């Protein structure tokens, strides 16, 4: 793969410079809130703005550790539990479904695809009340499950629609070879097709995780106890509480982003290999 196409040293440097410029421009907002969080309130409102803190101020971070009523670490853990569970549900259900759609020509397939598309179209205000009533009757109100199940409804159709393309691109011969080796349809699906579509599964997993991770409305509606709510609800409350006190707000934002960034950097190897390893190495 890496030997596919050699590029010259000169080109390499040129590309790298452009890449770094793009990087700087696109990720500037993140840098900006990071330095803002380290400034004093006066320096934040200083004109012209300073591009690094002239007086290092860590009071905004300390204040967050001290203020007792909202525990950031717990809400971060809540978000993790919710997002991972919801991702698992989405993947377990979406992988077979997308395979079924891609590889079999059963009646009503188009309608089912349409059905999956349709489920993504509802504005959040539509789902809140009916789901609330359902979760209450199922005794799931005010538990992680309510939000997990609701968040999975975003990840499933998305994953189905993306993954069906992956499965469709796998040559039929591969599957047939598996039958000759003694697999039936289900074992062939699990042993041969899923490993080949691994990259797609990983990407869908990431997206499903992120949809659940970023959700605000469900977490705030179906969970009433502050100690069970996800981190997005925490930030939203925090904004209501501190309004335009930007040193506090940006510090909170940074603390929310740092763990995400760490997970991401740690996982990056898998994400990138999932994205770029050749589709079919058959």
């Amino acid at each position: 793969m890496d030997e596919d196409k050699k590029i010259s040293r000169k080109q390499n440097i040129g590309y790298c410079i452009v890449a770094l410029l793009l990087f700087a421009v696109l990720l500037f907002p993140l840098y900006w809130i990071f330095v803002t969080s380290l400034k004093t309130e006066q320096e934040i409102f200083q004109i012209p703005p300073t591009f690094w803190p002239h007086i290092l101020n860590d009071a905004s971070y300390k204040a967050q550790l001290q203020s007792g009523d909202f525990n950031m670490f717990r809400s971060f853990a809540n978000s993790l539990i919710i997002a991972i569970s919801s991702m698992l549900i989405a993947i377990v259900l979406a992988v077979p479904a997308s395979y079924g759609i891609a590889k079999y020509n059963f009646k009503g397939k188009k309608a089912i695809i349409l059905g999956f598309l349709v489920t993504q179209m509802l504005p959040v205000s539509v789902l809140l009340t009916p789901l609330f009533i359902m979760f209450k009757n199922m005794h799931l109100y005010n538990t992680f499950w309510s939000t997990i199940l609701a968040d999975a409804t975003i990840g499933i159709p998305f994953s189905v629609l993306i993954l069906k393309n992956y499965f469709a691109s796998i040559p039929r011969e591969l599957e047939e070879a598996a039958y000759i080796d003694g697999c039936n349809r289900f074992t062939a699906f699990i042993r041969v097709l899923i490993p080949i579509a691994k990259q797609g599964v990983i990407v869908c997993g990431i997206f499903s995780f992120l949809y659940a991770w970023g959700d605000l409305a469900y977490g705030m509606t179906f969970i009433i106890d502050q100690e069970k709510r996800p981190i997005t609800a925490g930030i939203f409350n925090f904004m209501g509480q501190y309004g335009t006190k930007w040193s506090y707000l940006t510090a909170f934002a940074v603390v929310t982003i740092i763990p995400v960034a760490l997970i991401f950097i740690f996982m990056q190897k898998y994400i990138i290999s999932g994205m770029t390893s050749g589709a079919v190495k058959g």
Partner: protein
Amino acid sequence: MKKVLATLMTTALTASLLMGCGSNAATSGNNGEATEETAVSTESAESTESASAETGSASGDVTIWYYWETEGHQAALNKIIDDYNASQEGVKVEAKYVPFADFKKQLSIGASADELPDLVILDNPDHASYAAMGIFADITGKFDVSNYYDGPVNSCTLDGKLYGVPFGSNCLCLFYNEDMLKEAGCEVPTTWDELQDVAAKCTTDTRPGLAFCSLQNEEGTFNFLPWVWSTGSTSYEINSDGGIKALNFVKGLVDSGAMTKEAINWTQGDTMNQFISGNLAMMINGTWQVPTMREEVPDLNWNVAMIPQDTQQASGLGGENYAVIAGGNEDGAIDFLKYATSDETCLYMMNTMGYISADKTLAAGQFDGDPVYQIFVDEMEYAQARGPLPEWPDVSDAISLAFNEVMTGGSTPEDAAAKAQATIDSIVGQ
């Protein structure tokens, strides 16, 4: 395409079957709840008869929803709850914080799903809406509110019945930075003209002279209406000489730069933060900010005054009410309420939170020797309530749209007023 349709039909059928199940469940749930409600109402009828005699019989858990994000307020509420729980065996009270931005939604969804707490502490202009929804218990005759200010009591009342008890009140005043006014050589303004003049003189390159929360929501309406009332017009008369005059006045402030336009994105808390950071010379804000300001900036030279007037004094009446949820643990909630509204507990809450008691006698003696609070108590005499009207959210929405249109320059005061009036008339029916 035919196939698609056929499958769609099947899907729809299945869905309607599912729906059928759902609505059956809901109906049976409703029935159950209806019986429960009847039971409760007979019960409450009985307890009204012997209201004063037996209050110790209440038991069970009582959940309270409230929306104060200020830590001091939360601590005060939790303290009286702890004291109450320790004082008796039967009832165990627990408070849950529901963010303000979420409070209305949570109550209205909770109402459709019968998943509500037993007691809520809510913003008084919303009280009538929920009372009309039927989620509050009628507690007429269980609390003596005759010594309370009229405004707060009216906000708990619908069709002559009492659906809540005033928690405490606050009102708006003019806050000013004494040093900045002195620097600009200004006296404290008392009329609109003076306010316009002082605000302009205190405006510098880096800070505006004046701001008040002008969000396009209830908070903004609360801060805007005193200007209308000060002309003698009512909340329902926006397209009147007074209403248009008020809109023109606000427009003048913004257009001249004396008031910052950013205020349409500021909550009252934001406005206070700007003021204590020295980014504002004057602001309109409420009683409840005083404890925070004293704690955060003890050295800042600030003071309060009555809101400058046009033809008459006016201020906005804010505050919360307690309301007992119908069909919940009503007895337990009422028992706690008796405790919470007793003179001593009430006074503790009011003083800690920087609120003015809704009880006139308590209020009169509440802030002896505190000049800042005394001005608020004086201003209370002129504080007007919003509503009470079940459709108040609609009226408020029309008003806040009007002043936002004017402040952003999207509409002339006359056009905005006419549009708002059309909406208001369609709601209030002239």
